[in-house]
């Protein structure tokens, strides 16, 4: 297929939601890897709440990308948000790190915030998170950088307040969901793409509704997209 939910233009704000049986890590990892490969000059910032540096490195190394080298050269900044104890000291310090890192960047930079839900669950107030995301968005727009924000949806069909607020900031909403019929070896889940309030003109990116969501299968280090009904098991 020609278009996948990962082929989105640069310089956008992308909200990625997932559920426990279908984590959206693969989108973040693939975005980072393709960004490292395509944009040598660009700056990359990973703001990680739950996932350790080791996993980012391990998956990138399978694509022949050495993240440690990137970090040493200064083109990649990995921020472990947990080490700042955001539930006590707030998110201001983390924002300062991002501002510092984006200071001398080229237009096609990438900022990944993984994830905002855990921040909320461990005690950071929703208002603080929203303000942080809004400030990040402003910085990214200023530097024409791409911002990916990951959010976990815990109750199907009941979007929480944080999600509603974040949705207002987003250009696109990538909706990663498990199959309604349960886990399968041939299909890991499906991805829909919705337009946000700030979406670019419809001609540039065509949304993918849930009824025609693109299915994917995870491999050790990547994912394979296919249309519904074209899985390995069916064909």
């Amino acid at each position, binding site marked *: 297929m020609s278009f996948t939910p990962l082929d989105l233009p640069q310089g956008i704000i992308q909200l990625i939601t997932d559920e426990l*049986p279908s984590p959206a890590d693969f989108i973040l*990892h693939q975005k980072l890897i393709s960004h490292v490969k395509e944009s040598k000059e660009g700056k990359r910032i990973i703001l990680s709440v739950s996932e350790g540096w080791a996993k980012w490195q391990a998956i990138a190394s399978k694509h022949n990308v050495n993240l440690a080298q990137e970090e040493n050269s200064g083109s990649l900044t990995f921020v472990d948000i947990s080490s700042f104890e955001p539930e006590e000291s707030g998110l201001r310090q983390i924002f300062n790190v991002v501002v510092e890192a984006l200071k001398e960047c080229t237009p096609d930079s990438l900022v990944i915030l993984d994830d905002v839900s855990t921040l909320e669950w461990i005690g950071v107030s929703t208002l603080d998170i929203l303000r942080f995301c809004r400030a990040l968005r402003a910085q990214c727009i200023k530097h024409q950088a791409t911002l990916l924000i990951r959010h976990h949806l815990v109750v199907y069909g009941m979007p929480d307040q944080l999600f509603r607020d974040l949705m207002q900031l987003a250009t696109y909403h990538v909706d990663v969901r498990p199959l309604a019929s349960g886990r399968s*070896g041939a299909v890991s889940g499906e991805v829909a793409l919705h337009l946000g309030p700030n979406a670019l003109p419809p001609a540039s990116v065509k949304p993918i509704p849930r009824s025609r969501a693109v299915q994917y299968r995870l491999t050790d280090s990547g994912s394979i997209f296919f249309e519904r009904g074209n899985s390995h098991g069916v064909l």
Partner: protein
Amino acid sequence: MSSFKKKVSSEQIALTGTRSSPGSTSTIITSTGIPSLDDLLGGGLPLSCSLLVQTSDPHSSYGELVHKYFIAQGLVTRQNVCVISENPLNLVKGCMWLPNSGNIQYNSPQPVSTMNINDDEETGQSSNEKIKIAWRYEQMKQFQTTVPSSALSGTEESCSTFDLTCRIPDSIINSALQSGQLSLFDVGIIGMDDVSAPCSALVLRQIEKVIKAGSPSTPLRICIPALGSPEWGDVNSKDILRFLHRFRTLLKQHAHTCASISLPCHVSRPFWDGPGWSQKLGWCVDGSITLSAFSANPALTALSPSHHGLVEIRSLPAPHTLLSPSDKFSTLRGLSSSATSSGGGGENNLAFKCTRKRLVFETLHLDVEGGVGERRTTPSTGTVMQGVTNDNTLDQSLLPRTAVAAVEVLLEEDLKVSVASSITSTVQMEGSVAAMVPNSSMIDTLGSVGGEVCSKGKKPKKRVAFQSDRPDLYDF
């Protein structure tokens, strides 16, 4: 030295009781003590990962049993074990141990063989082997619902075979305590150190100390069997999630540690903190499974008498890959075979049972009536036949059933008697309405015909529910 040899560092090989994951050489896994749980996790629990076992049933303690296996396995393989609980010594004393007095085997350098499982199922299988099996079925693989203990370990046994009827000897606990292999912390006592700080923060500090005190070349198992119990003070959902999150971060920083955690039954309930509580817990740990015991619901016990509860997998550890190793290597989940075959089927339903000697996780199938296991050959029509043969004991309440049964018997015997055929047609035309209305003449006729049939052949014909090979059934 070539670059190929550099990949496998000697430090990783030296860790006792561990092996590299079949999926990725960078992932080091260790056994949970239960071979079938290891299979669900894709070979074992990866180091630097945490496993949460949720059991919401207040009347059973299967979660605690999983922890006991986890501790016992750590002690057998000479790994460091840290238990944080209320009265942790009692928990360790209640651990199972190796059969045949583990003292000698414990001291021996070789891991214990798993060949001497003397369980009731094993003996049942050996007696079955004497049965002569038809040639076309003889070659077929025996039906299995779980994995053997040595399925994943290859040449070297990674998981010891524990026996629930054996208790851990006191001498082993004492020597482990003295050598520092086993460290026990009472949550209540830790909480008294500093009353102003929350208990969870003090526990984390204590864990950090234990990790730093131990050698990185010896894996450390941390076991928290009741996170959030009353001894932890007034904890709310935020405290628990914050603790799990920080604990996970701590484990990630120390690659020689792994943890097994449970919550008290009331906290384990899926909606303890509103909808989505289980999902939130699942996101804050690496692996999360739920054991729903049937003891909470007698109807489920009746439905599946051979199991003690259902297993639900919420998340699985994948420390270095996007896809969990379990998806590729777990025999019980069955996803790997479906990915390669043309079926593309879903995940197996899973259940657990606790026999006299071990806890087993296995696939859940329909009971005997679904076609699995032994074949039921007892004639189910026996009671009905009695009702037909004995005219005097014919009860009015049995009438509809009797009438239908008589018709079926007539068809099976293929009688050419005209009387019988007329009755058959009557019943067929009037259907159940006719059968429901008591008619004394009809009862008499039916009774006499039924008696005639049964006097001809005393032995009632065995019937099965599936009658597709009898097209003459519809030929009248």
